[in-house]
């Protein structure tokens, strides 16, 4: 059977890269008595799939991965078993059994919530910027790519945006087809008043990852 694990990653562990995080969880599983399924061959490995790589330096309260385990184990104990093996800063929040036909974590991701807080404590994003952004018919953003530049209407990828005390809350597209980096939105908001994003360093906290239900709603990834 397949389980989906939800976890948080905060504090100094935000510097752990994606591949290292995978190895970290593989080793953690091996320290528990949870029986994980392995691939065959001379160097068997766990069959694990992460919803989305989290950038180095980004914190999160809503990360997910799927892993295949042997049938017949008590899933209700797994959260505690895993948490006994965690380093300070990573906590397993939920372990759920995936329905037979559920899409894997990576393919499921549709959107993310982010909380942006500016490092120096002053929020350069104002209510009026948000208002102007929301009222605009389209807001073009030009992104540099390997093969040059592409310009797109960033509004299509923003489902919600609000001003907070420390910065900005946003719900944006995170699907493989339209993954929007939080930085792009911050940059667009500030640019409306000719403020340069580089002058305002910020922290990113991912709060949740969502899937889209058949009727089009966004639900947290562990509601599969």
């Amino acid at each position, binding site marked *: 059977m397949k389980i989906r694990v939800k976890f948080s990653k905060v504090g100094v562990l935000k*510097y752990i890269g994606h591949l290292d995080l995978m190895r970290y969880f593989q080793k953690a599983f*091996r320290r528990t008595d949870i029986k994980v399924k392995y691939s065959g061959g001379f160097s068997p490995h766990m069959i694990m799939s992460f919803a989305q790589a989290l950038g180095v330096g980004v914190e999160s309260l809503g990360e997910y991965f799927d892993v295949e385990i042997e049938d017949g184990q008590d899933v209700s104990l797994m959260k505690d078993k895993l948490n006994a093996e965690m380093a300070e800063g990573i906590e397993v929040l939920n372990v759920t059994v995936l329905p037979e036909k559920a899409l894997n974590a990576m393919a499921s991701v549709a959107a993310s919530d982010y909380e942006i807080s500016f490092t120096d404590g002053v929020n350069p994003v104002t209510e009026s910027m948000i208002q102007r952004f929301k009222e605009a018919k389209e807001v073009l953003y030009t992104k540099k790519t390997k093969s040059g530049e592409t310009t797109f209407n960033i509004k299509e990828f923003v489902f919600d945006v609000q001003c907070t005390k420390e910065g900005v809350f946003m719900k944006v597209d995170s699907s493989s087809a339209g993954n929007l980096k939080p930085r792009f939105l911050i940059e667009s908001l500030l640019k409306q008043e000719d403020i340069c994003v580089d002058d305002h360093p910020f922290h990113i906290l991912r709060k949740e990852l969502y899937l889209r239900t058949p009727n089009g709603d966004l639900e947290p990834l562990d509601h599969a």
Partner: protein
Amino acid sequence: MQKLALPESVLMEVSKPERYIGHEINSVVKDKSIVDIRFAMCFPDVYEIGMSHLGIAILYDMFNSFEDTWCERVYSPWPDLDKKMRELGIPLFTLESQEPVKNLDFLGITIQYEMVYTNILQVLDLSGIPFCAKDRTWDDPIVIGGGPCTYNPEPLADFFDIFYIGEGETEYRELLDIYKECRRNNVSREEFLHKAATLPGLYVPMMLDVEYKEDGTIKDFVPKYPDVPKTVKKELVRNLDDTYYPEKPVIPFIKVTQDRVVLEIQRGCIRGCRFCQAGQIYRPVRERSVEYLLDKAHKLLKNTGHEEITLSSLSSSDYSRLDELLNELIKECNEKKVNIALPSLRIDQFSLDVMNKIQDIKKSSLTFAPEAGSQRMRDIINKGLTEEDIVNGSRLAFLGGWTKVKLYFMLGLPFETDEDIKGIADLSNLVAATFYDTVPKEKRVNGHVQIVTSTSFFVPKPFTPFQWAKMDSTQDFIDKAYKTKQFIMGELNQKHIKYNWHEADVSLLEGVFARGDRKLCKVLLTAYKKGCFFDAWSEFYDNEKWLEAFKEENVSIDFYTTRERADDEVFPWDYIDCGVNKSHLLREWHKAQAGEVTKNCKVQCAGCGSARFDCGICVNR
């Protein structure tokens, strides 16, 4: 509250910030207000290398098992961070507490190879500790060195307060107790060091003066006080089943060089290859029991979650119960889906069967280290591996499906002739020919055989029979590598032999420091100030700067490398007693000249002197 010594702006800019944040699983955090002694344990190279070192893991575990002591880790900051720390004035810190190293009581540095000497200066420099021991006060930690290079610590003598000679498990407790007492009684740093110098295995350079002859060689060693011994005897663990071994080693977040459980099956080696320092300084060979090892393997796999385990020793094939150990280990590992990474074993039916069980033959390769190409030269170096062993071993392996062979040799061994060099090419060719003789065309898995022949340059090391040998010059090395290449090109199977050779410049420097004396301290410091560090990394090694440093300090490289040494020369390291007598080494040096071999400890005791430790092979023969 989690604490970091480096600000976010720095961590986000340097490569691999995970090297500096600590907080790994199984790292030990204690309440600093209740411990008496804080010990910083340093491997002066990058984190991934330092974290792979078993010796440090053992000592970390030992120190932290003492209730009054907190041991933390330190590694060399990579050049990108080094630069930032200097710019921003951030002092070097330990990983656990993220506090400046300078706040601690001890800075222990393991010295595994000569090319980290400048990194030691980097560590001192970034910590804000004066380079020279004589300039330090109680505001500075006691700087203590250990590891194989301390069998000749003289090129580093100025920079260390103490060197610990031998295996660390035995004498530290006593040193820590004396330290506590001295601090309680408010005695001077010098008096503490004086006391330390009287402990077994501890060498305090400040307490031993060196007198030189006119020709620059050593006349005598003179202790500063009558109670300071003139000879420092190495320390060793007699019973390896009854000592510290970490059951919960730190698990790094990033992939380190040894990302696996390391099981040290024995210490020492029964063979006396005459170029090999490890074969002498770790004598006598002492084995751990299979029962002990299986118990540790089980616990370590459970506590780390590593997916691989490896055996560590100088010569695993000589471990007396190897088949029993491996069979049990394979059983456990299959169950747990754990890989076994085998150290290079003597190639015979047993080892091939084992490899067959645990590796993909198509991908794995066989390794032979004949070290010399001709039988004459193998007799000189006392390498008991014959052409027949290699041919028979390869034949068996080729029949079993292997097609890749790695061969390791040394160039520049004493008394080497062109014939010996040609022997490298001939032997490589012979292995290739054996493949075509053995495996019929239709059964050749990859169609052909792949031989990789590598040569390194021989560097004479202290406490070996070759400590008297003159080393080749850089030009000799380059010429010999060229000759080897030519000889290989002349072989019938040259198409299937790939030849690799080492950098000659680095070997030369290694040669200088290996048999160096105190006069080299100033060269090191000058080279460091010119910007030399991370010399073990070819991208940072700057030969020009080194040559400048020697010139400016008026120190001759040839004195240490190409000079002939008389049988009765007093060497800079002669005040150390590693267990093997100098008279034995000299006898071996003469036997090498005569091309005579010496049997290994299992076959016949050669009376090297180590029997006085009264343990290991010397008593269980």
